[in-house]
């Protein structure tokens, strides 16, 4: 259906990858900044706060951890609630794993480190479902893995640097809520969710997820409502939704929707300038991705 077919066999351009990754990294950085401030306010030293972002690399659980500390709770209770929040990464890890090449242990270890909500959601959401045609699977995997790694490293860098900035310079920043930073995260997740909302089964999975999460929140421990929301996917797989089974047309529509996110005219001028600066790093990564 598409007028020009030339883009289908080529990997996403470096520029488009940077334009995908950069705004995500900046949004994560805003969140990391407030984490750094709050972690120090909760009693961690700036060095330990920064170290926590390097080692844990899962924002929600880190907020939960320092939240318990700030209330004077047992640190292990904080760790436990953080771990509950992070059980979802088992599901995210399995979701991205079917595109990953596997390989030696060190490569699997690095890929595991890069599993964050944003890297998995952008890689899978923008590339569409795994094609049923075996001949197309390789090209699909290459694109997914490249996007996953570029966004992953961008998020890692933004998260860690912003934490350090917030932790060491925290006194300079007022209450993060004044800037609406607490709403930046659900807004970002909504944008990540968008490609799924354009398919019937994706909408079903998302709808069930919302109902389960909000229904369980008042009665279940933190983290459990989110994990339960994964059931939305389980139900949606077997639900009798007809139009998804129409075939690759839906896949194409989804890929094009994804391309629209990066190709949007809204790409700001300053982002373009920064993109030039970041292009070298991304190019190195693309070369490493291999074809």
């Amino acid at each position: 259906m598409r007028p020009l077919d030339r883009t289908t066999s080529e990997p996403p351009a470096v520029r488009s990858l940077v334009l995908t990754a950069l705004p995500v990294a900046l949004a994560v950085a805003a969140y990391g900044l407030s984490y750094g401030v709050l972690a120090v306010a909760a009693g961690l030293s700036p060095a330990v706060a920064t170290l926590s972002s390097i080692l844990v690399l899962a924002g929600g659980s880190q907020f939960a951890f320092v939240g318990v500390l700030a209330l004077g709770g047992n640190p292990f209770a904080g760790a436990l609630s953080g771990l509950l929040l992070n059980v979802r990464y088992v599901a995210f890890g399995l979701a991205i794993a079917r595109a990953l090449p596997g390989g030696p242990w060190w490569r699997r270890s690095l890929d595991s480190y890069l599993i964050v909500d944003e890297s998995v959601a952008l890689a899978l959401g923008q590339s569409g479902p795994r094609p049923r045609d075996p001949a197309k699977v390789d090209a699909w995997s290459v694109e997914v893995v490249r996007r996953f790694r570029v966004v992953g490293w961008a998020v890692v860098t933004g998260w860690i640097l912003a934490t350090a900035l917030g932790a060491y310079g925290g006194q300079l920043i007022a209450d993060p809520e004044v800037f609406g930073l607490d709403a930046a995260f659900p807004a970002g997740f909504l944008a990540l969710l968008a490609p799924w909302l354009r398919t019937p089964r994706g909408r079903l999975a998302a709808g069930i997820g919302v109902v389960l999460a909000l229904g369980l929140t008042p009665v279940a421990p933190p983290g459990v409502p989110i994990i339960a929301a994964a059931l939305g996917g389980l139900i949606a797989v077997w639900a009798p939704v007809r139009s998804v089974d129409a075939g690759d047309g839906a896949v194409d529509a989804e890929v094009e929707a994804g391309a629209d996110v990066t190709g949007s005219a809204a790409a700001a001028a300053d982002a373009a300038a920064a993109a030039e600066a970041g292009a070298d790093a991304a190019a190195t990564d693309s070369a490493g991705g291999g074809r």
Partner: protein
Amino acid sequence: MTTILALVVLAVGTYLMKALGPFTAAGRELPPWLDRLANLVPAGLLAALVATQTVVDGASLTLDARIVGVAAAAVAVALRAHFGIVVLVGAGVTAGVRALGWG
């Protein structure tokens, strides 16, 4: 010292959960139903994250300035705005509503 130890528990536990997929399922052919499930699970998880971060405060549901900001962000998503614009709209509208004195 207890704090550092608890932090290490959180870090190691989180990493092991992340590593489960890449160390067991990467580079393998999955049955089609499992493949389809793996594609749909992120939708449920992301939707739950959006919902809880918008209307949950502690363990209770609450309506405050965030719901206005996220609703504005939803409009931006529907208009296919760039990711960065969506985030700016969400944070900016929330901050604006708070500046007006609600939530």
